[in-house]
């Protein structure tokens, strides 16, 4: 694609053309030539739209809750964009992207755009392109943009850096109160949803979550805790009103905006670093000869890293 085509594509994305939007997302997801220019055309540092992250362990009901949130926002006339990330196989690179299954009732609604993404080797609960993809959906007029992570364990907290509001979905039966005290995902929810509230163990879970929050330093904002059953609908009204309050409260904050742009720059710089390192490695003969040299005992990955860094430093100086 030439520069004119990319500008054209950006215009079509802004106009809301679904096919163009879908293609723009693919381009960026594949890191195709021109994706940086396209994102440049669509970038908006002001970001008037909101992003809502939804995370939690596998099977906690994230997609079902996402389906309910979409319906709620649609009833308020909002256009909703969804990015649903599922894990890619570390062996084949393939993936079953099945979150959409629970949201298919919105497939024919032109006010809803759902895109499934494989994590493609990225750790942290998202894919490398999720942040850029959310910018594209925002530029296309979707507000909010809902980002569903892969089913997470304990440490995948990346979504909190991307989303204005992060919803952590927990369910009874996954462990005792020490699990709740652990660092990581238990710290990132602005809203903690205790789902499957009709299941045994919900009282213990709520007690453990609340006790843990009470131990948080008083300087940090306290997460809201809501019980519900996304399946039956019980408790959802309170969840919706709590979430709306949080979204409104997260309004334009110059410090937060600065922080977001800072993160965007660092994220892009990091991907540049990875690509440059790959090129330097390639120039030194490629990965396979390097593996041979390590296996022969000539060097180690650390020395190869040091050499790459020296090469890069020379180029900088």
């Amino acid at each position: 694609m030439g520069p004119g085509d990319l500008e054209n594509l950006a215009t079509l994305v802004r106009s809301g053309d679904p096919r163009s939007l879908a293609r723009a997302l693919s381009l960026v997801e594949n890191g195709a030539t021109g994706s940086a220019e396209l994102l440049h055309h669509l970038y908006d540092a002001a970001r008037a739209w909101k992003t809502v992250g939804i995370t939690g362990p596998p099977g906690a009901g994230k997609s079902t809750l996402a389906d309910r949130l979409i319906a709620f926002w649609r009833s308020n006339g909002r256009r909703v964009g969804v990015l649903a990330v599922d894990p890619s196989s570390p062996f084949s690179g393939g993936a079953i992207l099945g979150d959409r299954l629970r949201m298919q009732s919105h497939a024919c609604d032109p006010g809803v755009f759902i895109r499934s993404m494989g994590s493609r080797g990225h750790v942290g609960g998202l894919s490398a392109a999720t942040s850029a993809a959310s910018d594209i959906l925002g530029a296309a007029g979707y507000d909010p943009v809902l980002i569903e992570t892969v089913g997470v364990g304990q440490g995948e907290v990346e979504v909190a850096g991307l989303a204005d509001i992060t919803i952590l979905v927990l369910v009874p039966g996954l462990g005792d109160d020490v699990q709740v005290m652990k660092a990581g995902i238990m710290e990132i929810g602005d809203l903690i949803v205790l789902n499957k509230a009709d299941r045994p163990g919900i009282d213990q879970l709520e007690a453990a979550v609340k006790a843990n929050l009470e131990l948080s330093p008083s300087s940090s904002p306290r997460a809201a805790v809501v019980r519900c059953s996304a399946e039956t609908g019980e408790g959802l009204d309170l969840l919706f009103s709590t979430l709306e309050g949080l979204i409104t409260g997260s309004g334009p904050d110059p410090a937060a905006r600065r922080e977001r742009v800072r993160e965007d720059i660092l994220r892009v710089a990091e991907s540049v670093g990875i690509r440059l390192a790959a090129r330097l490695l390639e120039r030194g003969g490629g990965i396979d000869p390097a593996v041979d040299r390590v296996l022969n005992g000539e060097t180690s990955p650390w020395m190869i890293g040091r050499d790459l860094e020296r090469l890069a430093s020379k180029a900088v100086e």
Partner: protein
Amino acid sequence: MEPRKIRILIAKPGLDGHDRGAKYIARALRDAGMEVIYTGIRQTPEAIASAAVQEDVDFVGLSLLSGAHNHLFPEVARLLAAQKASDIILFGGGVIPEEDIPGLKAAGFRAIFTPGTPAAEVIEFVIGEFAASDRSGSR
């Protein structure tokens, strides 16, 4: 550079709830390194076409065991064409009588796989068609 990932939508239009075949193929395609969007049973042709466009898939695979394929399969092809998405490659599978296959092919289905087809045959079809399409190049 790594080759571009092939994206496939596997969907079941119509009213039958027998999804073993669809899941078997979805899983096999996953193991062949493809991204498979699985939308489950009882999908309308409209929902399938709309999902295919939003997901920017290279292929749509439909599975049907109820006998309504002569109506539902061409309907998906028609809706994709209406959304200027006829470059998406269509294939189908399920309990489909031999005599219905030419009609479905005329409606735009590149292949119809009947019960007992080994998964390897479907994978080979996908890889071959993808390599021959314009989709493998630019994006």
